[in-house]
C-alpha cells in the first residue's frame, strides 16, 4: 500500500488541473471501494457490516469527488469546504498495517482502513504544503480534510469495538 501511495503522490504532483487531480483521487476511492466490496464475501457474517460500511464510505467519497469534478464552480465549492479543516488526533499512528490475508477479523479490517486513511491524509497534506497558494492547494487541503474526517470516524469505531469491553 505504501508503494501505491508513493506512486500516487508522484502522479498527483505532476497534475496541473483540478480535474486531473480529482481524477486521480477518484481512482484512489474506486480501488478502495472495490477492495472492500471484494472482501465482503470473504469475511464472517459477524463482521460483514464493517466491510459493508467501509465500502459505502468509499463509494460516498467516489460520488462526492465525481460530482465535484463535474461542476463548473469547482474552485468556489472547494473554498467553502475547507473553511472548517478537520484536525488529526494522532490516535491510529501506532497501529500496524497488517497483511489482511484471506479471512481477516474485525480489528484487522479496521487497522487496514485506518492505515489507508492515514496514508491518504498525509499524502494530501504533503501535496498541499508543496503547492503554492491557489485552487490546486485548496483542493489538496479539501481532500486531506475528507480523509482526516473519515479517519476520525474510524478511530471512534475502533475504540468502541476494541476498547470498550474492559470493564
Amino acid at each position: 500500500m505504501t508503494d501505491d501511495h508513493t506512486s500516487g503522490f508522484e502522479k498527483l504532483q505532476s497534475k496541473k488541473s483540478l480535474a486531473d487531480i480529482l481524477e486521480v483521487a477518484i481512482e484512489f476511492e474506486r480501488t478502495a471501494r472495490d477492495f472492500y466490496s471484494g472482501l465482503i464475501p470473504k469475511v464472517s457474517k459477524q463482521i460483514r457490516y464493517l466491510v459493508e460500511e467501509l465500502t459505502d464510505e468509499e463509494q460516498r467519497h467516489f460520488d462526492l469527488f465525481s460530482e465535484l469534478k463535474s461542476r463548473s464552480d469547482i474552485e468556489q465549492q472547494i473554498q467553502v469546504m475547507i473553511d472548517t479543516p478537520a484536525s488529526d488526533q494522532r490516535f491510529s499512528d501506532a497501529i500496524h498495517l497488517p497483511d489482511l490475508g484471506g479471512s481477516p477479523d474485525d480489528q484487522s479490517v479496521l487497522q487496514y482502513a485506518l492505515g489507508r486513511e492515514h496514508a491518504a491524509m498525509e499524502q494530501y497534506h504533503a501535496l498541499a504544503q508543496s503547492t503554492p497558494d491557489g485552487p490546486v492547494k485548496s483542493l489538496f487541503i479539501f481532500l486531506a480534510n475528507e480523509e482526516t474526517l473519515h479517519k476520525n470516524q474510524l478511530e471512534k469505531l475502533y475504540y468502541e469495538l476494541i476498547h470498550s469491553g474492559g470493564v
Partner: protein
Amino acid sequence: MAKPIQDSKFKIHNSSIAHEEHGSILSPLKALQFFARKPVTVPLEPRPAAANYRGFHLNDHEKCIGCSSCQKVCDNAAITMVKVPHLPEDPVKGIRNLRPAIDYGRCCWCALCVDICPTGSISLSREYVHTCTQEEIDSYFILPKEIGIHGVDFGLGWTKTDDSDLLDLERQPMAETAPKDRVDNFDEIVAGYTDQQAVFEASRCVQCGMCNDACPTHMDAPEYIRAIWQGDLEEAVRQIYHTNPFSHVCGRVCTHRCEDACSIGRRGEPISIRWLKRYAMDSVDHERIKAIAAEGKVDYLSGHRIAIIGAGPAGLTAAYDLVRRGHEVTVFEARSHAGGMPRYGIPEYRLPYDMMDRDIDVITSLGVKIQINTQVGVDISMEQLHGEFDAVVLAIGLHLGRSTRIPGSDHKQVRKAVDLLRMITDGKKFTPPKQAVVIGGGNVAMDIARSLARLQMQKFGDVKVTVTALEDKAHFLADPVEAKECSEEGIEIFDARGPQECIVERGKLKGLRTWKVRSIFDEQGRFSPSYDERDEQVHAGDMVIEAIGQMSDVSLLGDELTEALEWQRGRIQVDESGHSSVDWFWAAGDCVNGPDVVHAVADGHRVAASIERWLSMKTGVTV
C-alpha cells in the same frame, strides 16, 4: 374565610336565648338608625403564621425525584403520586417523573412527608387560607410546586432540619482486611455485616423502590431489606430468589446500580443493598436455601428438552427458571467448572469460589444437569444439539481478550488479562513477572493488577505493578473502590496514558511507551482521544498485560448457523427477549449485551420466559 369578630360591642352579654325574645313593636323604627351608619366590613386577610407553621405544601420539582417516600409515610393516604410527562424519567439514575399531589380533605399537616423526604424538596409554607365555591371543590387537591398554592410567597414554614430529619444518612461501615494483611493472599477482603449492623443498615431504607426500578433483574430489594429489618432472614432469601438465583455472587460482585439509584444517596450514603443481600444469603443454612428455591417448582415433567451452552450467570439463570417449569435442561460447559465469567474473570479475594458453588448447587439441586469439559463444536456439534433438544441457548460470555496490536504487542511476554485470570483460577503454574505493566482502566485491569500483586508478594515479597489507562480518573471504567484498593496495595495507576509501543530490546520486553491523552471524548460523547506526543513516558516491565476489551468465541456456531443468523454490529441479533432470527436459537448474557453479572441474570430470565412462550405456542399447550 372571614377574620374572627373581636370587637367587644358585638359580644352578647345577655345570657337569654335570642330566639325566645319577641322584640319591641318599635323595632322596625329602630332599624332605621342603621341607614345613616357607615357599614362595617372585615377584610379577608389572614394573620401571619408562625415561623415554623405547617401550612400548604411546597415542592421543588427540580429537586424532587418522584421517589414516593412522602406517599408511603402518609398515614392519611393524602398523597397521590401523579405522572408529569414533561419531566425527566431515568430509572438507572433514580429519577421518576412522578410528583406528589396533596388531598387537603385528608391531610392532617403532620409534616411527616417533609421529615422523610430524601431530597429535601418538600416543605410546608406559612400560607393556610384557601376558599372556593362548591364547583371548585377539586382545588383542594393540588400538585404543589415551589410557587405556593396561589402563586404568592408566604415564606417557608415547616422545613427539614437536622432534628426533624427521619433519615439516617450514614451507612454501616463494612469491615475489611487491611492492605498489608491482604496483599499476599486471595482471602476474601470483605468481612460482611454483623446481625446488628445489618438491622441498623436495613432500618435506613425508606422502601421507595428506586432500587427495584434500576436493577436489571428488578430485585425485590425493599422487600428483602424489610425482612432483614424484621429479623426474618428466610423470608429475605425467599424475596431474593424471586428474581436472582445468583445471589451469593451478586451479594459480592454485583455492579449495584440499585445503590446508584437509591434515594437516600441524594443527601447521604445510599443503603448498602449489595452487602445486605450478602448478609441474608450467608445467614441462612444452605439446605434451607435449597428448600426455599424449590418452592413453586412444578411437580411434573413437560417433556421438553432445552440445551444451554455456557454455565455462567445467564445460562444457569435460564436453566433455573426452565427446570422449575418442568423442562429437562442440560448445560454444556467447556471448562472444568461451572460459573462462567465470574469464576474465570473475578479473583477469589472478591468472590470466593465456594460461595459461587453454593449458588450453582442450588440450581443443580432442582434438576439442572451440567456437563463440564464439553466443548460445543468439538465434543458435540451444534447440529446434534438442534436435533436432540427443542431449544438451544447460547450464553458463552466474553472469554477472548482483545489486543491493542501496537508495535511489540506480539511479544510472548505481552499477555491478555483474561487468559492470566483463567490460569490463576485453574491453579495452573504461573511465574509472575517481577515488574508488570497493565493496559486498561476497567475492573478487569484492576483484577489482574491486584492478582499479580498478590503473586509477586508471595514470590518476591514486593509489589511492582503499574496500570496505565486511556481514560482519566473522572472517566475511569473501573469501580472507584477497586481503583482505591489498588492504590492501597501498592499498585501505581497512571491515568490518561495512551499505549504506543511495547518496547523490545534484543528480544526482551522492557516495558511500555505511552503518550499523554489530552482529551478523550468528542463533542458527541464518542471516544476520540487526542494525544500529546511531547509528554511521553516509559513504564518499565518484563510483562505487559492487555486488559482493554473482550469478545466472544462464536466459532462454535459453525459456518452454516453463522450465515443463518442475523447479526447486529458484530453481535448476534436478538429481540428484547433474547430470541435470535433462527427459530430454535436464543442468546443471552455478556455475549450479546456486554459484561455485567446482574444483566446476565436478567437476560437468563428473559430467555427462559421467551422459550416458555415459544413452547406453548408450538405445542398449543400452556405448560
